[in-house]
């Protein structure tokens, strides 16, 4: 799969997954890897930037059988941002489709 496409869309993928519910880092990398091959590590800078920009917050949940898990949750600002990005994406797809038809 084209790396440029992946890079551009990864932030939207992460945000869209979080819209469906809070997730922890490993969970996100697993879910996204099902659909496309990515270097799991590259998700962490994206998550960090989202947190720096206040689109997500994090919280820890202790687990009996393993390490504590850091969950990511969309803020209100993040929800708005995901909506805006999703619209931009759909517009973009439409534009590319139009150009391919000729």
């Amino acid at each position, binding site marked *: 799969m084209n790396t440029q496409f992946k890079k551009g869309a990864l932030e939207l993928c992460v945000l869209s997954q979080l819209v469906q519910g809070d997730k922890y880092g490993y969970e996100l990398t697993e879910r996204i890897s099902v659909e496309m091959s990515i270097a*799991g*590590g590259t998700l*962490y800078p994206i998550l*960090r930037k989202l947190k720096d920009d206040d689109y997500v917050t994090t919280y820890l949940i202790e687990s009996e059988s*393993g390490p504590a*898990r850091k969950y990511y949750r969309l803020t209100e600002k993040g929800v708005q941002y995901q909506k805006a990005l999703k619209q931009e994406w759909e517009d973009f797809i439409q534009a590319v489709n139009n150009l391919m038809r000729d």
Partner: protein
Amino acid sequence: MTKSEYLSALKHKLESFNMELQQEIMEDYEQHFAEGLAAGKTEDEIIEELGSIEDMIQELPEEDMKQEIQAMDNVSRKNSTYEGEYKAIAIEGLVADVYLEGSDDGCISVDYQNDGDAYIQQKYRFYQYEENGVFHVGVKDSGERKDKKKIILFGKTILSYNSMTQCNGNIQLTVRIPAGIPRVEAVTLSGDLDVRGVRTNQLELKTTSGDMNLDDMESAGMSFQTASGDIDLTGARAETVRMQTASGDIEVSDLTAATLTAGTGSGDMEIEGSLEEYIIKTGSGDVELKAESGVRRINVTTGSGDAELDLTRVGGAEVHATVGSGDCAIYGADGEQHQVTCGSITVGNGDCKVSVRTGSGDVEVRC
């Protein structure tokens, strides 16, 4: 590659970023490994899935890189606190007086005050930054560099510095240092160094003309160097202590350590401590040394300076004296006086080996 090799490489590559990012990313990766292993994957599989460390580093936000030198804001008063684990703290005072104190809240706190006139305020700027785990803080000269000057002692350059404007007490830099930072170093040119209550492993202080006042310090290794400044140490516990001045005086009391190596050119020395070994040298400076029981070796060498050794608490010594044109008197525990110009005398149990050499200085040893 194993998990610990991978994480180790990651930690190394993260060093150009600030402490907070380093900690967070390391935690993320630790958690990721833990989840993967709990799900039954092997370390190799997880590493394969995580991918290239370099690629990930490229994606980290630039704003989180190590803080830039904050030198160019015309700050005349600044007060800040820093958390985090540093492997060293490096303080540069220049003309500022530097106060170092121990802090008990686990944080480094910095207080900077520049009360000089407009010229001084503009010329000397405060800076702080961290790089590779080292916390740097100090004062920079924002003017042009002039020719470097050097102080040479016994054929070795011990300090080199830029010629500086006089600045008396206008600039003060106070740094509170928590215990546990392995290395503390501070350098000034004309500023004084006042250090108390600092706990570290390697302590290195240097000044050209500033004085050093040191109290209540603990560090395995200590090294103090001045050119014309005096060194006044009241209370320290260490393994190895080194002191060097050119014309400054040295005064030491309440020092507990294994070895003290101290030298001056023309400065005088007054030393009182519980050490195992003293190695003392002066040129024209006088030496007054009082040792406690437990001392095993004392070596004193002067040129024209006098040497006075008080070994009354030592319980006995084997004294070798070599005196040029000075007088030499050695008093035994019985008050009996022995005159020697060159030779050795054993008093008491002789466990402590004492060697005194002077050129034209006088020698007096009391056992």
